[in-house]
């Protein structure tokens, strides 16, 4: 029982972070049909920028996090303007490859600046443990869950209430119609990349404080985005959040209950991915594409 609660909570914490990262991914896909392979590197950038502002420059940590997140958003917008904009109308493989090239470039830049050796992260989430139903759980995991939930709520409000958010939904629904209603699609794309960079950066910062360190390993989470979004549906925001939670939980249980030398936690999400693709390719909430000649 104790193990179950521990595994569940750490699964939910990881899952909430996966959901955050996947949300940015889905946002980019919905508004511009781009599959972003560099999402994992956005996590890396968020984590290292926070390391820079808090540890190396020495800002008060809430201020440092805000500065890092804003910088990450600027990087997102810059990438959209410089690299994705020229590729509008190119085939899918070109767009995939450009984001792959981007991920390699970003990793190289981060590596050249901060090196490859893992560094101790600045401590800003409390690290003590509390006892819930007889199981001791790290407070930082609870904090991660709470922060992710707050961010989800803010984003939901943004999409429902703000005119910018409504414009984004309009573009996702029908680009032509949105254009004819006077919505600037270019602006929406820039906002989508900024939000994707921000959610990924927050995910990276949370992972950094859960791991207690920052290293290139954080970018591995970028690959886990794919099982999450396929499970939830490539173009569904609630799907991304729910998919994140399910994958996080399954990974946690598989890693905790199956023999550890198998390392099932790593491969489990991809086995699920392949199964979903075979049974229900459009995921839980994804829109079924009907093709006509």
């Amino acid at each position, binding site marked *: 029982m104790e193990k179950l609660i521990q595994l569940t909570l750490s699964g939910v914490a990881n899952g909430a972070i996966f959901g955050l990262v996947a949300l940015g991914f889905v946002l980019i896909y919905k508004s511009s049909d781009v*599959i972003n392979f560099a999402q994992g590197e956005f996590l890396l950038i968020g984590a290292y920028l926070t390391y820079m502002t808090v540890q190396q420059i020495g800002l008060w940590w809430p201020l440092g996090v805000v500065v890092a997140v804003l910088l990450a958003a600027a990087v997102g917008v810059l990438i959209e303007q410089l*690299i994705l904009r*020229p*590729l509008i109308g*190119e085939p*899918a*493989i*070109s767009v*995939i*490859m*450009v984001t*792959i*090239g*981007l*991920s*390699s*470039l*970003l*990793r*190289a*830049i981060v*590596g*050249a600046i901060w090196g490859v050796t893992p560094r101790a992260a600045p401590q800003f989430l409390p690290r003590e443990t509390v006892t819930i139903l007889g199981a001791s759980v790290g407070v930082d995991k609870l904090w991660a869950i709470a922060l992710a939930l707050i961010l989800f709520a803010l984003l939901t409000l943004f999409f429902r209430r703000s005119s910018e958010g409504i414009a984004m939904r309009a573009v996702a629904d029908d680009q032509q119609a949105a254009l004819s209603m006077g919505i600037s699609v270019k602006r929406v794309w820039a906002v989508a990349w900024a939000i994707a960079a921000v959610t990924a950066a927050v995910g990276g910062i949370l992972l950094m404080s859960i791991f207690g360190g920052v290293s290139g390993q954080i970018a591995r989470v970028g*690959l886990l985005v*794919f*099982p999450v979004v*396929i499970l939830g549906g*490539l173009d569904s925001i609630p799907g991304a959040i729910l998919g994140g939670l399910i994958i996080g939980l399954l990974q946690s249980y598989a890693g905790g209950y199956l023999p550890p*030398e*198998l*390392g099932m936690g*790593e*491969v489990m999400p*991809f*086995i699920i*991915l*392949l199964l979903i*693709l*075979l049974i229900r*390719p459009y995921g839980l909430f994804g829109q079924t594409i009907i*093709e006509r*000649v």
Partner: protein
Amino acid sequence: MQSGTFHTNYASDMALRPYWPQRIRIVLVIVLVLAFPWFADRYWLNLANTIGIAAIAAIGLNILVGYTGQISIGHGGFLAVGAFSAGLLAARLNMPMWITVPVASLFTAGVGAIFGLPSARLKGLYLAIATLAAQEIIIWVLNHGKLLGIGESLALSRETTNIFGIPMIGNTDFSFYWVIMGSLVLTVIFVSNLFRTRAGRAFVAIRDQDIAAQVIGVDLFTYKLLAFATSSFFAGLAGALTAHYRGIISWERFTIDTSILYLAMIIIGGLGSVSGAIYGAIFMTLLPAILSNLARALSGTVPQINSYLPFMQQGAFGLAIILFLIFEPEGIVKMWRNVKDYFRLWPFSY
């Protein structure tokens, strides 16, 4: 100046290289390939062998991605299947290379066809993500392959590297050069002719418009599986050659970065072109080598450059992909064609 192409018989219409400049160029290339190993030292022979193996795998990947239009991000996994099946046959059963390499290639073709099954229902981006899963699952199996008897890595004895019982002794780089270039030439001839057959034309039809292809009687599922199998066959061939050439293999050589490297080769070289895959393999293999030579040359004046070398190589890799896609999406093949057109049409270049 030539004003057009006029064939007067079927033989010239069907020829792979109908024009005399092409024939001169191919003779030059053959002479270069034959003469190269007699003058090159081990460093350059090693580079040439690496390029040869990469070119075989890139041509194979191009069958799937460039000609059939099915994106695969799992080719590193298929190379691993080829390498480890050849390695296991050689290390456990002491089979010689001339048996293990074809067997491993055929086995990889089968594995590739299995992972091609999702293509029955999936297209485009969804299929790309499915192949990504295939990659991760294959590497996980090899990484936890206690059942297969693989530890951290697999070592092959040099006794198995013989061709029809003739052992390859002395300078292995030199002897492998002929094996690898021979395989590459056979691959090039096979693939160039593949797209003049029924199956090859079906592949191209699927790429251009799958529904239209189905309407004119191309069985999509069969031909997609065939494309996966053919493509994986060459991945397996490249993997098996790597295993015998290096003599020691571990799963770390075949991670997703390898899959991405091969995709980058065919993108930069030119999608849907055999020569493009070779140009891409040359470019992508020489780029890090040139950078490391540059770093060595500059290390006297800028001593800290060596610690930045891995990041320079990684960054140059990413930057090359981005710049090619933005400025020349059709790759080196198109650039080479532009150069030829400039001289062919000179001085009236429009």
